[in-house]
């Protein structure tokens, strides 16, 4: 369990932010709270210089700054040691440069994924990042959290797609990381250090990303299986085949009803395990991949279901959600174990057991799954069942009931290289101004 001692801060003298225009500065409110901590002020930066001013001021007064984009993953993390300034980058909203011939785009941190995609689509291009909540999620937030969707199977994560960025680090320095070209080994790779650093080293102000041409044709095929082992066998065949799939995902809706389970499986609901494959390319390539997938999954092409979006379970703030990582071949066996434990854990002898609603979505080809509960029931069992060990290599708690992460081990055991991470944090944010205590091991 990570305990996060709070750090007392002095009241902020808002006169130092006199340069901020109307609507850019307001007092923090309950709605801004993270793990119960309400920031003193909320700043919405419109200029990079305002970001720098906020970080510099925070550093001089040892204040805690948490950067917020669209807020889709803002709640994830340890309870902050201090939370004085919520620094919104949503008003950094310019699409700076689109270069379809170079297959690159540069935009400010606050541009939403959906807006960027619409703009790129007009040029026949796209960003191969399909992170969730695209209308809200900002490029800055996606880069800060290395957020991904199913396309990571075919195109990698933001760490593979970000070419450069400008940031303000915890020392208040303006860093130009990487560049605008697709191949670049000049100097240390600050881009990779910063991408996925969850706002603990620097505030991202703009990003240059690699783009891809929009495919001429695409389809998402869904293959349903009655058992985990059937799905896993199909997964092995598909994963081992030389198909250039864009995505290889998983969805399974499991409602664990201890009452009906106790009777017979005939009475209870039988979960459907779905393999979801995204195929892209020319019409011919899409058709050919579809046929091969059907053969590998043992289906007649006429019976393959086609969907246009990956299914997502209902998000319920009352329910817990976790993300786990395994070796790709271990994912299904790990999930089977976890589900058995959740089932067992939610049965309380002598007590009236509640039905547990659990949805699992994941990236079969990458060994990543997200398990989310549809209501408050089963939270403790889910957290116990997904602890790191055995096949489960990593576990991040993404949601807890009531949103208070205090006392939760959000990021799991410290990585072997933690001492290096702490050193990097110390050098890029020596006064622990940025998201203090929120990341792995309280970084």
């Amino acid at each position: 369990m990570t305990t996060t001692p709070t750090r007392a801060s002095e009241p902020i003298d808002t006169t130092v932010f006199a340069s901020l225009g109307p609507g850019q500065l307001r007092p923090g409110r309950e709605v801004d709270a993270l793990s119960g901590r309400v920031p003193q002020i909320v700043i919405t930066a419109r200029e990079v210089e305002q970001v720098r001013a906020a970080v510099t001021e925070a550093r001089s007064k040892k204040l805690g700054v948490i950067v917020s984009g669209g807020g889709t993953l803002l709640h994830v993390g340890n309870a902050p040691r201090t939370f004085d300034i919520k620094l919104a980058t949503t008003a950094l909203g310019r699409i700076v440069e689109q270069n379809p011939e170079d297959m690159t785009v540069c935009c400010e941190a606050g541009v939403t994924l959906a807006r960027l995609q619409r703009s790129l689509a007009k040029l026949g291009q796209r960003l191969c990042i399909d992170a969730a909540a695209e209308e809200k999620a900002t490029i800055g937030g996606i880069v800060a959290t290395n957020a991904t969707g199913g396309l990571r199977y075919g195109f990698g994560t933001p760490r593979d797609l970000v070419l450069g960025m400008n940031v303000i680090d915890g020392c208040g320095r303006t860093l130009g990381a990487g560049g605008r070209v697709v191949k670049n080994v000049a100097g240390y790779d600050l881009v990779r250090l910063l991408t996925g650093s969850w706002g603990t080293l620097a505030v991202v102000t703009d990003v240059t990303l690699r783009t891809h041409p929009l495919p001429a044709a695409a389809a998402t095929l869904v293959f349903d299986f009655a058992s985990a082992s059937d799905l896993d066998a199909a997964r092995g065949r598909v994963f081992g085949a030389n198909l250039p799939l864009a995505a290889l995902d998983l969805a399974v809706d499991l409602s664990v009803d201890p009452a009906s389970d106790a009777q017979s499986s005939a009475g209870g609901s039988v979960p459907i395990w779905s393999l979801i494959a995204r195929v892209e390319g020319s019409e011919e390539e899409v058709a050919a991949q579809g046929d091969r997938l059907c053969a590998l999954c043992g289906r007649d092409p006429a019976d393959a279901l086609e969907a246009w979006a990956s299914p997502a379970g209902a998000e319920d703030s009352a329910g817990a959600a976790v993300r786990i990582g395994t070796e790709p071949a271990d994912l299904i066996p790990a999930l089977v174990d976890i589900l058995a434990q959740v089932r067992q854990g939610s049965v309380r002898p002598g007590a009236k057991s509640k039905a547990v609603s659990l949805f699992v979505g994941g990236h079969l080809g990458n060994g990543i799954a997200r398990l989310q509960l549809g209501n408050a029931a089963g939270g403790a069992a889910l957290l116990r069942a997904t602890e790191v060990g055995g096949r489960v290599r990593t576990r991040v708690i993404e949601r807890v009931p009531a949103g208070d992460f205090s006392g939760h081990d959000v990021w799991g055991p410290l990585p072997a290289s933690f001492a290096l991470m702490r050193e990097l944090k110390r050098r890029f944010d020596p006064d622990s101004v940025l998201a203090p205590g929120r990341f792995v091991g309280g970084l």
Partner: protein
Amino acid sequence: MSLDSKLLSELRAIVGADGVVEGRASLKVYECDGYTLAKAAPELVVLPQTTGQASEVIKLLAARRIAFVPRGAGTGVSGGCLPGDAAVMIGTSRMRAIRHLDLANRVAEVEAGVVNIEVTRAVEGRGFYYAPDPSSQSACTIGGNVAENSGGPHTLKYGVTVNHLIAIEVVLPSGEVVWLDRCGDAPGYDLVGVFTGSEGTLGLVTAARVRLMRRPEAVTTLLAIFPGVAEASRAVSAIIAAGIVPAALEMMDALVISAVEAAYHFGFPSDAGAVLIIELDGLAAGLDGLAERVGQACVGEGASEIRRAADEAERALLWKSRKRAFGAMGRLTPNYCTQDGVVPRSRLPEIVAVVAEVSSRYQLRIANLMHAGDGNIHPLILYDESRPGEVERVLAAGDEILRACLDLGGSISGEHGIGVEKLGLMGAAFGPETLAAMADLRAAFNPLGLCNPNKVVPTDRGCIEVVRPRPRGGG
């Protein structure tokens, strides 16, 4: 610095007598990498056979505050393993085990001294391969590939080394062994990404878990012949603009063609001003149509002829001609120097014009070889070191080309690294605060500066005096 006999005997106790190389004659081979002929041999070379030995060696050196430089196969082309201030070189050439193949997860765990092509050889019988394919892949090693974040012709579609790593085992400059691991989206900073391409300045790579790929179902390779480099450059843009991402998109100009034709007799037309080698791969379905579209794009920009490799043998010969082009240059010139600039691909015609202008102004022949699809140029500046003043002109011309790359929004290195070669250009490429942050990054791993000192980022000591060695080429 002089290394005493006690240290020598302690090192021998760790790695065995045959793991310590000393003496002028034996050390000669370690004097340089592919970049240099500088007389800068280390005082001794230590060749551990295991990670444990490497750790013991580095602990011993750290305790004595003795600087060291890691070395893979010595195929680097920016002087990254030039000893400089380091007395001791640690080579990974005896760490050659393929530790584990896990085809169910498409992973191979290999030691640093395993040659790049050996990874593919170990798994190709089962339809897999390791994608990064630097031109030196039959000699360069995985440890060196990680240190340099090596690329190759197929990076256009498949990415560079860092895109194919799951975890790396490193010995830090303190001697501590640590696995940097990103399996399962491991929470924390992407230290695999940070370490890869750090040119041996953050520690010694001893092993890597690399991602294996399935061989594509079909491959087709086209050769498009152009009257000149300008037309070929425009064809690159036309292909990309058509929404096609080939597996490889390489350019050679007339000078390179004449050298490789003399060496390998592929049958390039003698009057070609430039050629593009375009490889397409993926599903068999649709590949012919794609090749047709690529051919049209080339013809639209002035290609006089499009050939398609008839069979695997012809394809192999074409790639041999391309990958060994550096070696063939010896037929044209006593010496040459390779540059490694990058421009946004749409600016290729402009940088090509700059190279031609620099060539004429400096009165130096410059051959053009490029990973055109990535905008990564390798101008080969031909010269004769016996002519007084020519080396200086070559270096000045090279710097000018790289500065032009920066002006066009590019980079001073796409895949060869900074090493000592381009240290002087880092200040032009990055602002002072960014360079300070890079120095901070290095200090987090290498606080005493003992590991490969004075490389990549200019140090606080300011402009360090590296005797600029006589350049050669490679890559």
